[in-house]
């Protein structure tokens, strides 16, 4: 049966001599893995439409429960080439792709996550094309943090940072093992708290509630953004039982260039 939908390429995996297995996120089928015949050949009709981040209209053929349907057509809607063009920008975005692959189940529609990814990519691209933004990397970190916070909410893994996860009272210490802030009474006997500043908490609530179009109005300090990012990254690492691979490489690369 022929299916038609749209999707964003998350990753590709070489298969055989010149074939690829392409992982898409689609609005109506969630994560979708498709088999593409010979796209690695120079004269392939798929051209650059299977490169990561490409938003395209796709058609694929396969029975309903086929694990790997065959991709028959892929027309680019938007390539996000300017995001792919810069290593640091692409590395920042790769974290979003890795998060999506790890959290969204296959063949399970998740429109909110799909449009969140698409809108964040558009915002990052607009930011990169806008000459007035002198510090693109810092803005991208803000966009990526916004994506992570919203994405965790849509995936049902949001950390509870606004009040104690047990009794609802106020608190300033975040406990990774509980994915939540705990007040002094509830935290008795639990080790390793991470102190969270009121400013970081305010930033978290802003990022959680504000739309991507308004995010550029927020100008948090690097220290504040990195405080919040660290907590979110630790929370993700705890849920996945492993760190995001792109996160480690991104930090390494940025440190390497700045030193």
């Amino acid at each position, binding site marked *: 049966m022929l299916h038609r939908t749209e999707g964003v390429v998350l*990753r590709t*995996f070489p298969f*055989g*001599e010149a074939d690829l297995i392409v992982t898409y996120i689609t609005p109506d089928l969630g994560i979708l893995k498709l088999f593409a015949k010979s796209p690695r050949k*120079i*004269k392939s*009709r798929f*051209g*650059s*439409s299977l*490169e*990561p*981040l490409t938003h395209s209209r796709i058609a694929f053929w396969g029975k309903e429960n086929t694990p790997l349907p065959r991709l028959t057509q892929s027309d*680019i809607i938007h*390539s996000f*080439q300017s995001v*792919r*063009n*810069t*290593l640091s920008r*692409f*590395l920042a975005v*790769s974290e979003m*792709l*890795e998060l999506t*692959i790890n959290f969204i189940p296959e063949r399970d529609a998740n429109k909110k996550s799909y449009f969140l990814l698409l809108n964040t990519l558009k915002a990052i691209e607009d930011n990169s094309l806008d000459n007035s933004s002198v510090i693109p990397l810092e803005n991208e970190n803000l966009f990526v943090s916004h994506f992570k916070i919203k994405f965790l909410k849509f995936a049902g893994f949001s950390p509870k940072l606004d009040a104690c996860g047990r009794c609802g009272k106020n608190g300033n210490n975040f406990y990774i093992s509980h994915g939540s802030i705990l007040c002094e009474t509830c935290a008795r006997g639990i080790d390793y708290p991470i102190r969270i500043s009121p400013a970081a908490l305010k930033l978290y609530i802003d990022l959680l509630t504000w739309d991507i179009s308004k995010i550029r109005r927020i100008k948090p300090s690097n220290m504040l953004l990195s405080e919040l990012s660290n907590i979110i990254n630790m929370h993700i690492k705890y849920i996945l039982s492993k760190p995001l*691979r*792109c996160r*480690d*490489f*991104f930090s*390494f*690369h940025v440190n*390497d*260039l700045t030193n």
Partner: protein
Amino acid sequence: MEQNIIEKLINELTKLPGIGRKTAQRLAFFILTMSEEDAKGISKAISEVKEKARFCNECFNITENEVCDICSNTVRDRSKLCVVEEPCNILVIERSKCFNGLYHVLLGALSPIDGMTPEKLKIKELIRRVEKNSLQEIIIATNPNTKGEMTAQYIRDILKPYNIKVTRIAYGLPIGGDIEFADEVTLGKAIEGRREI
């Protein structure tokens, strides 16, 4: 139950890329009609390549000696180094007869999402070669896709302190292709990289 010898050969041949069961069957029956000398030649060549093939100590090309024929060739231009992803890329570039310098094989491309980090590639060895030799130009000929482009940019960044000319092979349309069927990214790159004639 033990397999018939023909069946066994067919099964072994299907392990090769691009060979399905029908092709394997055709090849197996062709091997049966071949002279014993030719058939043994194929078998010997396969065993030899598995026994003797190793990576060149300099460039990580496939060779049977410590240093490959290209690295040991004194006629080649030692001021230019072409960086490729896989040893098979060297064969293709050599066939073009457009490059007379040396090569460096990375044995992969960067892809943090798949766990391919710089430590897993031969990037440290590339830096060592840059430090040791008086190179004038490094041509990055990684694949024209996102992983290849990321690798190229990473190498460019990492080689900045050495003040060496780093170039990237051109993007564009394949010869014999038709503009009508080109996608916008490839065509955009071809227009960006246009040259005066």
